[in-house]
């Protein structure tokens, strides 16, 4: 099977009534998660992950992916109408969109954001459908040394691109990798860092880490600051949400540029949606003939950043599906979802599980259409969720987290570990240590250790193996250049960069 034939095969799976229902549930829940302030896609997917246990893998992943890109869509609504970016990738949408809402053009801004997201999602998925199999064919040549250097490079890029302090990003990753070493070693049967505690023998499930770090820590952080209730929310009719001809004329090229930039950045490990939106905004401002309009409520800016946001959501699937390496926090949780369902993403995924991968890609096309249909007429309804007091919302997250972990392990011990990671996540957030790299380290730690040990076995203990094979040599060289640049930057300017951490 190749090209279009594979895609049609995917549609035959995605269009079954059950999978259509899962896609609909996914995008609806995702949109709600995106609308809710303080509940990002990572928290949302992590908390809902246990609901997929025992499901058919294709259906489960269709649900999870629907939540992921639904959250990307939903984030724009609160950003534009209430100046509350649900997650960091919606910050630039809030800057421009809220100004438009104040001018009475909130409806059109929501409309252009929804259409822009739809176009970007479609462009991204077309690119994903064509590029992913090619990447997978290339990745099949990867052996353990290549995988180890690739993961090392990815971790470094994640630390460099997605946090505001490179050193803290790397420390976070290393702690995550250390967490992955807890438990009985699969190769030698030795217990590591278990200290005689039976509950630690099987290691720590990444879902426990994810829910603790994101959901519980989020609840603890929000206990510090009481949320302001939102009272003034306007209701919209569908007609008000349709952008005018002039809006379309000035926004169509920013939408296409945003889609491509977002997709490109999304493909990079650590790229994530936030960086994509900032770069897109910067490009649009630089090439615009009306630079003075930026920051005052500019329709093309909203169109571009929202397109970039959704383009990167599709782009993030390329390294995930072809290499098994997530680009950011959300895709890291998705990777964990794949693993829980007994599927290892990577170059062989397209050969071993074509039903899952092509069903997933086809469902994303369908999900995009569903999101457009949902987002336009139901915006007012989704906004009503904001009237729900945060206290009740956080109670719901607490109970769902406890139930999720319990259903996974049937053990009280895992619940205490979740609470422990909640405290760790809270402390790390307070001290400005980014959380997504820790999660990434926990998920990929096992694979990385296996790759390292297999490589050293192949080379009879010589670490030079990472510099002797062409692909690993190239990856090692890129790693050395990136690290050298970072060390130079740290020595000259200090460890901080001018950016917020990225959870997307």
């Amino acid at each position, binding site marked *: 099977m190749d090209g279009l034939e594979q895609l049609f095969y995917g549609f035959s799976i995605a269009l079954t009534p059950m999978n259509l229902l899962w896609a609909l549930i996914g995008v609806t829940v995702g949109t709600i998660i995106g609308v809710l302030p303080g509940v990002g896609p990572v928290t949302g997917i992590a908390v809902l992950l246990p*609901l997929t*246990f*025992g499901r058919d893998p294709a259906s489960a992943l269709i649900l999870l992916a629907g939540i992921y890109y639904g959250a990307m869509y939903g984030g724009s609504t609160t950003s534009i109408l209430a100046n509350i970016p649900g997650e960091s990738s919606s*910050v630039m949408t809030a800057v421009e969109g809220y100004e438009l809402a104040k001018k009475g053009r909130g409806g059109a801004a929501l409309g252009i954001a929804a259409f822009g997201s739809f176009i970007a999602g479609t462009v991204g998925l077309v690119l994903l459908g064509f590029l992913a199999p090619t990447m997978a064919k290339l990745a099949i040549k990867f052996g353990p040394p290549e995988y180890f250097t690739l993961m090392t490079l990815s971790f470094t890029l994640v630390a460099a691109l997605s946090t*505001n302090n490179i*050193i*803290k990003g*790397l*420390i976070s990753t*290393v*702690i995550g*990798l*250390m967490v992955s*070493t807890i438990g009985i*070693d699969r*190769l*030698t049967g*030795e217990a*590591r*860092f278990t200290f005689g505690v039976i509950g630690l023998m099987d290691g720590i499930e990444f879902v426990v880490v994810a829910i603790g770090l994101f959901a519980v820590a989020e609840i*603890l952080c929000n206990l*510090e*600051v009481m949320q302001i209730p939102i009272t003034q929310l306007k209701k919209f009719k569908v007609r008000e949400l349709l952008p005018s001809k002039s809006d379309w004329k000035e926004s169509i090229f920013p939408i296409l540029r945003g889609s491509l930039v977002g997709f490109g950045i999304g493909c990079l490990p650590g790229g994530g949606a936030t960086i994509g939106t900032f770069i897109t905004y910067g490009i649009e401002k630089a090439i615009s003939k009306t630079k003075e309009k930026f920051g005052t409520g500019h329709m093309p800016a909203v169109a571009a950043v929202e397109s970039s946001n959704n383009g990167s959501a599709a782009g993030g699937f390329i390294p995930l599906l072809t290499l098994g390496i997530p680009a950011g926090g959300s895709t890291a949780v998705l990777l964990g979802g794949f693993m829980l369902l007994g599927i290892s993403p990577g170059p062989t995924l397209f050969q071993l599980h074509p039903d899952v991968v092509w069903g997933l890609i086809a469902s994303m096309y369908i999900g995009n259409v569903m999101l457009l249909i949902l987002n336009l007429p139901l915006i007012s309804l989704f906004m009503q969720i904001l009237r729900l*007091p945060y*206290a*009740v919302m956080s*109670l*719901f997250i*607490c*109970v*769902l987290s*406890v*139930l999720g972990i*319990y*259903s996974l392990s*049937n*053990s*009280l*011990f895992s*619940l205490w570990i979740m*609470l422990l990671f909640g*405290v760790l996540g809270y402390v790390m957030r307070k*001290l400005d*240590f980014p959380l997504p790299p820790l999660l990434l380290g926990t998920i990929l730690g096992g694979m990385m*250790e296996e790759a*390292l*040990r297999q490589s*050293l*076995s192949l080379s*009879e*203990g010589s670490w030079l193996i990472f510099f002797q094979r062409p692909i690993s040599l190239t990856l090692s060289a890129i790693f050395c250049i990136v690290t050298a640049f970072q060390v130079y930057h*740290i020595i000259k*300017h*200090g*460890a*901080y*960069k*001018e*950016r*917020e951490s990225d959870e997307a």
Partner: protein
Amino acid sequence: MGHDRKSAVVLICLALFVFVNAWRIPRAALQYEIGAGIFPMFLATILGFLSILLFITAGKKSKSLEDAPEEAASVQSDVEKIQEPIANRVKRIVKGLVVLGVYLVLLPYLGFIIDTILFGIGYLMLLYGFRFLKTLVPAVAMAVLGFLIFEIALRIPLPMFMETFR
């Protein structure tokens, strides 16, 4: 000593702890077999190096916040938070952890439904200052919703009254 330096000291201790414990893991029997301690020792070494780097560079910031609107915004929100005494905020966090802890302790004894209703009432009253009557609807709704989703729809057995689990 700033927060970053204190963190660096704690992390150096963690690196040493991991290294020593990894060192104690028995070596591989065969000459070129890679033992279970190698990867943790490798990680501990990197963590030690990074922690020293964090200690040295702590407090150094490259540019003014004026050029970074997002960081400026986060600093602004921090300033707003500081207006409330830190003791009050810490008290709320500890209270939150205690409420959640009690919920987990009682779960095997009271079962999911009763424990969740009590947790909901305690959570909303103690942490968010809700009146008792106002807590009833969300607390009961949460317990019923959780039961319906997990026990009925997903067929995942939840702990019931006086039933203990591992």
